[in-house]
């Protein structure tokens, strides 16, 4: 009976073709292949975010008078609410981490080379969307730290040359961080960003499928391969379970703190800092003097960061000759420098 039902579904849904496709699809199996699993883990964490986010929506209320209380209700009164909220917060952070690892592994393996420029561009855009998810979601519990960190964060947006003041007003929904900002961030977090991310994610996955997973140049076309199904899928599944174990451990042993309710009239508490993934930028901007020659220090800093991000994004276009060994080493050095800078300045930003 079961076989008959399965056969009917397979026939009507055209699963035979999919099975056939999976049977013949292969992925490279070389020493650096382990890094490719981080893309899948990032996808897994995104799915977790969507699922836990939907559950949180059942209770969360995006108004300044109710936001904090509703999150407090979720973590203290709702059955397993603490777990859902904690998993959502931790998964957001792990997702940024795995997305960064995925990006740097693509960078060091030079997987962005022709013809995968669009895959790289869509991936970088997805990373920015992930950061935007983090930034908008951070404010939603409406607690003191989040409130003042959002103030600092949107102020940084205000330092963008030319459009800065418009951007700050647009993000805040006014001149100050208020209930209008909360409603706006909620809208970004649960509607705008998920929509954009889903579209870009589908495009990213389609491009990965179209051009396949890249092999390092030195392997050439003779790179060993393994069947996508079941070998790669099972290995990926192990990675997902590993991520689930880490996520569960963090959520259970270190439940995400709620803090105290934001009071817009209270002075900013000491030690206000953004989420860890903005710390390096935050600390660098703090170090820049208020005036550098005739330029405003903060504006100059934001401009330099913006140009660096554009340069990094356009990597496949100006690194179209990385087969040149000297240039290859120089780029690898640049990647190591960027990682060292992010790590050191994030630590300094945390302690400083």
């Amino acid at each position, binding site marked *: 009976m079961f076989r008959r039902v399965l056969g009917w579904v397979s026939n009507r849904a055209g699963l035979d073709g999919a099975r056939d496709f999976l049977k013949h699809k292969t992925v490279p199996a070389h020493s650096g292949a382990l890094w490719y699993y981080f893309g899948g883990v990032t996808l897994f964490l995104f799915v977790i975010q969507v699922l836990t986010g939907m559950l949180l929506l059942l209770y969360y209320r995006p108004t300044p008078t109710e936001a904090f209380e509703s999150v*407090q209700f979720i*973590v*203290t009164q709702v059955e397993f609410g*603490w*777990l859902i909220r904690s998993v959502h917060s931790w998964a957001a952070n792990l997702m940024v981490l795995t997305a960064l690892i995925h990006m740097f592994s693509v960078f060091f393996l030079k997987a962005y080379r022709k013809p995968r420029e669009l895959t790289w561009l869509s991936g970088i855009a997805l990373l920015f969307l992930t950061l935007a998810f983090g930034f908008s979601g951070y404010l939603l519990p409406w607690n003191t730290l989040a409130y003042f960190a959002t103030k600092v964060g949107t102020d940084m947006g205000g330092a963008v040359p030319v459009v800065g003041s418009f951007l700050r007003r647009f993000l805040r929904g006014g001149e100050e961080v208020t209930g209008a900002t909360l409603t706006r961030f909620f809208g970004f977090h649960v509607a705008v960003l998920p929509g954009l991310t889903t579209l870009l994610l589908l495009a990213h996955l389609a491009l990965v499928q179209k051009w396949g997973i890249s092999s390092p140049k030195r392997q050439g076309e003779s790179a060993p391969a*393994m*069947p996508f199904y*079941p*070998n790669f899928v*099972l*290995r990926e*599944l*192990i990675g997902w*379970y*590993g991520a*689930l*174990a880490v996520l*569960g*451990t963090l959520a*259970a*042993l*270190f*439940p995400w*703190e*709620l803090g*105290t309710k934001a009071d817009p009239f209270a002075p900013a508490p000491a030690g206000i800092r953004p989420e860890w993934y903005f710390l390096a930028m935050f600390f660098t901007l703090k170090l820049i003097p208020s005036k550098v020659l005739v330029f405003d220090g903060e504006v100059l800093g934001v401009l330099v960061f913006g140009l660096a991000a554009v340069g990094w994004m356009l990597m496949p276009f100006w690194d179209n000759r990385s087969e040149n060994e000297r240039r290859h080493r120089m780029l690898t050095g640049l990647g190591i420098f960027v990682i060292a800078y992010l790590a050191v300045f994030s630590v300094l930003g945390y302690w400083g």
Partner: protein
Amino acid sequence: MTLAMTAIRLALLGGALAAGLAAQTGKDSCVACHGALEGSLAEPTAAFQHDVHKVRGFSCVDCHGGDPTALDPETSMSRARGFKGKIDRRAIPELCARCHSDATLIHRFNPRQRVDQLAQYRTSVHGRRLAAGDTRVANCVDCHGVHDIREVRDPLSPVHPLRLPETCARCHSDSDHMKGYGIATDQFEKYRRSVHWEALSRRGDFSAPSCATCHGNHGAAPPGVATVAHVCGSCHAVFENLFTKSPHKKAFDELGMPGCVVCHGNHEVAKPTMALVGVQPGSLCLNCHVEGDKGRQAAEFMRSRIDELATVLDGSEEILKRAERSGMEVSPALVELSGGRESLIRAKVELHGFDPVLMDGSVKKGLEIAAAARRAGEKALQERDFRRKGLLLSLTAIGVTMAGLWLAVRELERRSKKG
């Protein structure tokens, strides 16, 4: 002597010349002359530059009389022109009151300024003694200064809240000066060890009491035995109310004991601690109450109940904090617990009614809150343990699944190598 007289005449001549110059430039000849002199005759002119009266347009002549427009000292300081010279100490209060008791004049400068200082002063010990001929007692200038009088809010004024105790102490801590008055001279020393001085000087709370708050300023008089509770009660109204209704009130009155100061002292009011209450050595209750009397039993009961509430609150807080350190969200319970702390404070206040039944109401309420907070803390810790057990089970299941998948992958790869 002749030499000295010649020197004074020369000085006066110099002053007259200066006065002549002053007249030409429209200046006050008192200031011009005395400014050119030396020593104590010149001091008033320098000091008067900062005086509030100078700032408001008054000058030497308003107190000392004379004619500041006359160039010749003989004329400007002549009795015929109303010159009074150095003011007799007994005449000072009336002299100041000429303006300060005149509401029409004073309210032109400060509508909130009182004008009853002289009337008050006459009721004070200082005023009564002065009227009786004792010129060693304080009058206006002893506290406010003579030629350098400043507004009370000016930190340089001797009667600014921060400087007032020191100003009173100039006489009251001087054993030679106070000889014959039969009062102690250690008030200032004691006051500087009190909670009131700490509040005033360290916390900068200018509303904290100093000498004048309890004794009055212009109407300075020591509060008597019967009125001391009212003096304390002018700030500590709740305590006064409780004490007035307490059994101690009647007993103290009968024994001629002042109220609050019996336990708290007067000038050296120390920070009250629970060590003052109870039947343990050092307790103040034992000063009057003996073994077996009702008061002693009440003291023992009240102390034990307050200790019990404090201990239970600490215990509940410790459990909640432990849960909080484990990442549990217990902030609502901690807020509730602060209500228990309020009950403890209320019980300590109600202690001043010396009625165990009255006080125990707050203790019971506090104990109920503490018990609820403790239950919330214990529940949070149970929940934490439940989460950890759940995590262990989940990790085991995940670990087993991962191991199974890994074995399956290995088997697949082994087969594909063979095949």
